[in-house]
């Protein structure tokens, strides 16, 4: 079980309101990702769920029970911190066993669970080392191990991959996704990296300044962003957003078109432009094209290799059915 319902949850530090009233339903077994720019309140929201911060108002209900006033340990949640927060003077075994020892479990059961967790996470060979003797990825696994032995109702991850290098991050991302497949436990995951959000989540919660901008599956957010903020935040490279005359042609204040939905041609098309920068990755080609229709260069993605370079003239044609229209308030027009 791992159902978390936030009802009218509010958080303020003195005068500064971090999270104005907010409602959110997290269902059992879901992988929910909180994503947003830094300072949007996503970590605070996670800490409110964990109980490390007190709510200023509202209710947190876990598995149908009001947990608003419960101390962190009583909520049945386990957390993985950005800094891993391992205990430096304890071996890996003792680190993982710590929550069980605190729960007063008998030693045989502790050993059984720790061994199982160590095996699952490939930590057998390091079990007697101290955290200082481990690499970043191994430390991360120990932190996850310490969380899973408790068999919690839900896991909370606070930007767990941001201290790892790029290659390791991709690997750990997969491991966490696999872990979720296997355990089928609710996971709440905070990140500022929209790629992590898109790849791992069942449900993404996009936050800005403590407000939920949109909740939905990764593809919902990609194909039907509710407003210009979500449109710009989800997807990489960013969606091109054009205003003015071009937008007016579509009866909108702003139109958005993703880089992958602009067809490229060297001979003909709707918008004429000049290549400013070209990035050739082999699998894709990214072009930054200066065009009179927009002040900023438009980003275009082409599959495979597209042989143009800085200074070349190209034509861009938006795919009509992939154009997103937004009104003066930035909300999507459907």
């Amino acid at each position: 079980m791992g159902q978390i319902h936030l009802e009218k949850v509010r958080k303020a530090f003195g005068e500064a309101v971090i999270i104005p009233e907010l409602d959110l339903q997290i269902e059992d077994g879901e992988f929910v990702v909180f994503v947003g720019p830094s300072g949007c309140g996503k970590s605070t929201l996670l800490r409110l769920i964990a109980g490390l911060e007190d709510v200023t108002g509202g209710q947190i209900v876990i598995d149908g029970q009001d947990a608003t006033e419960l101390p962190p340990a009583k909520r049945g949640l386990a957390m993985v911190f950005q800094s891993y927060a391992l205990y430096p003077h304890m071996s890996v075994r003792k680190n993982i066993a710590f929550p069980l020892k605190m729960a007063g479990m008998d030693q045989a059961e502790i050993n059984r669970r720790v061994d199982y967790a160590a095996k699952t996470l490939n930590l057998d060979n390091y079990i007697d080392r101290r955290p200082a003797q481990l690499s970043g990825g191994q430390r991360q696994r120990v932190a996850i191990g310490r969380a899973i032995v408790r068999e919690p109702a839900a896991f909370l991850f606070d930007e767990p991959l941001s201290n790892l290098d790029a290659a390791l991050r991709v690997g750990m991302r997969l491991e966490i996704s696999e872990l979720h497949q296997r355990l089928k436990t609710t996971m709440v995951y905070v990140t500022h990296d929209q790629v992590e959000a898109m790849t791992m989540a069942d449900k993404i919660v996009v936050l800005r300044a403590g407000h939920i901008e949109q909740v939905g599956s990764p593809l919902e957010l990609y194909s039907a962003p509710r407003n210009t903020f979500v449109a710009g935040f989800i997807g990489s490279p960013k969606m091109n957003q054009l205003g003015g005359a071009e937008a007016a042609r579509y009866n909108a204040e702003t139109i958005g078109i993703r880089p992958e939905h602009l067809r490229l041609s060297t001979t003909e098309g709707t918008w004429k432009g000049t290549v400013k920068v070209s990035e050739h990755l082999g699998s894709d080609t990214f072009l930054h094209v200066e065009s009179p229709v927009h002040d900023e260069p438009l980003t275009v993605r082409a599959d495979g290799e597209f042989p143009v370079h800085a200074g070349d003239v190209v034509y861009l044609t938006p795919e009509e059915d992939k154009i997103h229209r937004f009104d003066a308030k930035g909300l999507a027009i459907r």
Partner: protein
Amino acid sequence: MATLHTKSAARAMMAPAVIVLLIWMIVPLAMTLYFSTLNYTLYNPFSTPFIGFENYTYFLQDPTFLAALANTLILVLGVLAITVIGGILIALLLDQEFYGVNIVRLLVIAPFFVMPTVAALVWKNMMMNPVYGVIGQFLQAIGLAPIDWMTELPLLSIIIIVAWQWLPFATLILLTALQSLSEDQKEAAEMDGAGALSIFWYITLPHMSRAITVVILIQTIFLLSIYAEILVTTQGGPGSQSTNITYLVAQQATSYGDIGAASAGGIVAVILANIVAIFLVRLIGKNLDA
């Protein structure tokens, strides 16, 4: 280019300092060793015949020696116990956020700036005097008999005075250690179900172990040579109840004018200090490894 020349240049430039330092250490040590083999008294300083190890046997067989050795150990251990435990408790208190914490921190550190003789005199006359001392007056006020600290509990009095002087040092070092404990670890332990006491025992205390080691090592060095506090309060008495090795050695020279025996005592003290140091480093030195 840089290596060979700079190396010899560096040696040449360091030489004066090293030589001065060597003379500074070697000469007194050699003189002490030399004096310890002479029958050298201030009553007859012009005749100092060589007598071998007689000063050593005299000093070691002095019945006061064993008492002084025991007193030295009790003094060191007593002060260490009070300062480490008290230091941890005060550091925990000062780590909290409360109104006026900065002023309180300053006040707590203040005793460290008071000279040993002054501190001892203040304690002797204003705190522990049975008639007009604060403690005596307080005991009388609640209907108890005042204690004549310097005659009834001489060694304990000295332990209290010295502990008062060293508590700020311990508190300061332990407080900085406490402040370097990451908040995440405490929060992780809280999530793991540890209560305040468990967090202290399993997380905070191990984190402070290195600082505690430093406090013990540094304080031991200084506590083995406590002298001024004894001189201005009990003068080692009554009898030899508050005489430590350092005071005994000084007594040989100042009271009895026996430079030879004092020198032998000095060498014994050096050897004892080294034994203690070896024990300490063996016992807790591993905490200093990263």
